[in-house]
């Protein structure tokens, strides 16, 4: 009888445990609950770490040369997030946008510390940038366009990198920059127009 009672109590307790999301996406309400739990006790940060480790690692790996460096920077991103989680405030943007912002800052810091000036990008990403500009591209044009892109003001350069080299959607870019999706789209196209004009000026010289 006692065993049955204990079993019944155990089943009630285990039924009340929140589902562990692992790498699976979970809804915003659940996410806010996990964030609040992590703010109260950092040991609960593990659920958020499990959910976002992979996308953040892939994002960073796209910007650095090897997986070891990417892993070190990823750990640093999550360490900073864990330390500062108490300061996190929900402003209607996904938690991931906060992590991406930390990741971007960490990557930029890595570039500065290591005095890295050369950033690798995939050929097809460079080609997609040229296609978006509506231009028939050659290797020479791509090289010129990338040089111009690198000389853009930091915010515009960052927006081009996010859209074409990190392959983020307008929604994701908007979330990271804390602006609306339509605004992110407008900024991307304005920057593209600027690049296109500068490229034409350079080619017509």
């Amino acid at each position, binding site marked *: 009888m006692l065993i049955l009672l204990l079993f019944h109590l155990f089943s009630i307790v285990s039924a009340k445990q929140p589902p562990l999301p692992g790498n699976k996406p979970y809804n915003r309400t659940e996410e806010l609950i996990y964030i609040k739990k992590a703010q109260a006790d*950092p*040991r609960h*940060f*593990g659920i958020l*770490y*499990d959910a976002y*480790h*992979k996308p953040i*690692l*892939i994002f960073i*790996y*796209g910007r650095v040369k090897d*997986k070891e460096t*990417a*892993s070190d920077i*990823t*750990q640093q991103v*999550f*360490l900073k997030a*864990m*330390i500062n989680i108490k300061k996190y405030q929900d402003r209607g943007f996904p938690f991931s946008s906060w992590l991406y912002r930390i990741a971007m800052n960490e990557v930029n810091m890595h*570039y500065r510390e290591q005095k890295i*000036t*050369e*950033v*690798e*990008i*995939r*050929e*097809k990403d*460079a080609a997609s940038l040229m296609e978006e500009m509506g231009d028939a591209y050659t290797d020479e044009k*791509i*090289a010129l366009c*990338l*040089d111009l*892109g*690198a000389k853009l003001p930091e915010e515009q*350069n960052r927006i081009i990198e996010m859209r074409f080299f990190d392959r983020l959607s307008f929604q994701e870019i908007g979330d990271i920059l804390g602006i609306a999706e339509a605004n992110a789209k407008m900024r991307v196209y304005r920057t593209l127009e600027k690049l296109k004009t500068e490229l034409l000026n350079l080619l017509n010289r």
Partner: protein
Amino acid sequence: MKKYKVIKEKRQLTDDEIEGLKSFSQLTQSYQRATRRPTVPVYKNKWAFIALVIIVLLLLWISGEL
């Protein structure tokens, strides 16, 4: 000055590699190291205490109290 280098294709990380690079226990250890308070409070540290006394004496001397 930033410069872009065009490469053919970067090798993608496999799920196993990503899983191998994931370690919450290591992150927790780093967190504990980063947030750990010093074991000895400043006022109980002999050298910190002496330094503090010297600073106070210097301030008093500068202000003309001594």
